[in-house]
């Protein structure tokens, strides 16, 4: 009984067939633009960037949409990266590889979601951090995973007969994987699942009175985010060609939170913009100031955003129209009611003054 109620926050997003096509459209446009303008090694940077976009958007369904403060998302991200690195060069079909990575991420997040209490925000943050650090330390003790040097990634098997050796093909492959994932995430965001997460985040007691199980709604958000974060790690490692333990270090979980905050925690596309901005800034920085530490620069920008523009870079822009939703249709009306919410989750302890 409890499970079936909880699945209201977990079931496959219904609604119109066309919901989420904006994600596909945006990915196609960016895919064409990059393959037309970028060349050689910069394409690999864009592959990494696409991975971080998916990482930030999927993490935001936990942080922004469900209001769970997770500091251990790097665990799933890094595990996806290591899964790809381990299976490359072993004739594992590429079509199945990313499904397999998604399942790994989901299973890990499910096991962990059953252990960790998600009611207390700070305990959740610290316990997710601890879990990711445990895996990080384990990497150093397992010689098969390359210890501190990590694993290099070989070329994947052809994807539906198309070789992934050329950089342009690899770019289109990662656009397809990221685009499909963003499509699913966008449908979740606009569906009953997304509304359930937002309801549980905003008022747990009211959500319970409506028959929603906050425990299982949060659990579902954690599981989906874990799966897609693992896929994101897989994309990133295809671009940078080495899976290193740093992908699981806790500052990586901090980096994805920075991306989310830079772009805007309350906007579906905010984290995507934040991820592009973050990877571009660190890339430019290491290009021009090779001796310095980009953290100083990133920290200054983050501080300015938190102090002056807490809703994030995208927060105040007009929302993108959702393709396929007519005005007055049931779903967008509900969705807009959810959108009229504060830029940050209001804490349970202190009422706003």
């Amino acid at each position, binding site marked *: 009984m409890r499970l079936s109620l909880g699945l209201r926050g977990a079931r496959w997003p219904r609604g119109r067939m066309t919901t989420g096509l904006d994600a596909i459209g945006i990915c196609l446009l960016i895919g064409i633009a990059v393959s037309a303008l970028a060349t050689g090694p910069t394409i690999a940077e864009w592959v990494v960037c696409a991975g971080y976009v998916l990482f930030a958007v999927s993490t935001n369904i936990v942080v922004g949409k469900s209001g769970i*403060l997770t500091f251990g998302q790097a665990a799933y991200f890094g595990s996806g990266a290591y899964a790809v690195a381990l299976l490359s060069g072993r004739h594992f079909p590429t079509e199945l590889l990313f499904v397999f990575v998604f399942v790994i991420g989901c299973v890990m997040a499910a096991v962990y979601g059953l*252990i960790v*209490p998600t009611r*207390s*925000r*700070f*305990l959740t*943050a*610290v*316990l997710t*951090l*601890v*879990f990711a*650090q*445990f895996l990080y*330390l384990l990497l*150093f*003790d397992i010689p098969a995973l390359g210890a501190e040097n990590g694993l290099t990634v070989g070329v994947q098997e052809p994807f539906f007969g198309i070789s992934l050796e050329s950089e342009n093909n690899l770019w289109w492959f990662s656009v397809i994987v990221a685009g499909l994932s963003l499509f699913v995430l966008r449908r979740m965001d606009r569906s009953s699942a997304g509304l359930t997460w937002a309801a549980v985040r905003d008022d747990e007691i009211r959500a319970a009175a409506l028959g929603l199980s906050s425990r299982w709604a949060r659990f579902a958000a954690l599981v989906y985010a874990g799966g897609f974060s693992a896929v994101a790690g897989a994309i990133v490692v295809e671009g940078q060609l080495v899976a290193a333990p740093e992908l699981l*270090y*806790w*500052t990586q979980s*901090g980096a994805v*939170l*920075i991306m989310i*905050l830079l772009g805007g925690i309350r906007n579906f596309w905010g984290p995507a913009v934040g991820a592009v901005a973050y990877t571009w800034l660190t890339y430019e920085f290491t290009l021009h100031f090779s*001796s*310095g*530490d*980009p*953290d*100083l*620069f*990133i*920290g*200054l920008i*983050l*501080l300015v955003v*938190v*102090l002056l523009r*807490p809703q994030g870079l995208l927060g105040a822009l007009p929302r993108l129209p959702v393709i396929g939703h007519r005005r007055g249709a049931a779903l967008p009306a509900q969705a807009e009611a959810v959108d009229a919410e*504060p*830029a*940050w*989750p*209001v*804490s349970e*302890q*202190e*009422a*706003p*003054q």
Partner: protein
Amino acid sequence: MSDILTKLAGATIGGIASGMPLFVIGSGLTLIFGVMRVLNFAHGALFMMGVYLCYTLSSGKGLGFGGFILVIIAATAVLGVLGGVIDIGVLRKIGQSGDSELRSMFAMYAVFLILSGSVAYIWGNQPLSVATPRFLSGYFSILSGIVVTRQDLFYLVSGVLVAGGLFWLLRRTTFGRRVRAVAADHEMAVALGIRASRIRLEVFVLGAALAGFAGALSANLVSVDSSLATDYVLQAFAVVIAGGLGSVEGALVAALTLGILESIVAIYIPQFSPYVLYAFIAVTALLTPRGVLRRGTIA
């Protein structure tokens, strides 16, 4: 006394000693959380600044007793001033609205990035080291062969001084009563005429100064580079979570327990020593979410 017991006693004394700097870091963090409801991610970075200051001030030489005490006082004072700047420049701007917990946490994450990123520009990328002060090298043995280093004794004395000072400050002075009032109920304290923003500033200065003090204490035992900020913020979180968010007594018990555990594991099962910290956090957070003394405010 048998050999095993001697070894165990030595490990316990070493653990208590190494737990003292952890308590000094953790007590500042837990005070800041208890009074301001700010999860201070920059606390490890403040500790790191204390270590770097100690490096600069001691200028490569092994200091004598007076010189080292002066360096510690200077590092503590500079970090206190830095804490004041952070509170006035960042935390006061965020204020006390309903969403301030998350915003201030991310603001402190930004401060952590700024401090640990600026180290490369000031002191360079290479790891540095601080020479051990002359009066701290050497050891003596008590009770038929238990070895106590002078460093351990120094940690024990300074830890006891800090703990005693903090308890006196919080339990016996007007300042302490005000701090406890703001921690217990911010609005009621304001209604009673306590200047809460002043108390918040003083608490943040105190917490930052304690981090700087701990940094100067540990400077000669650590490799001085920017990874100190990421390592020690986790150690401080461990102490604060295990002790209960906001509880100084809990932080003392938790820091000493963690110190003893790490020291014993390092002797008997060294391959597990990196995991002790995380296992300690996970077990205490799952079993006693309000801290070992059950005095924390669960948040």
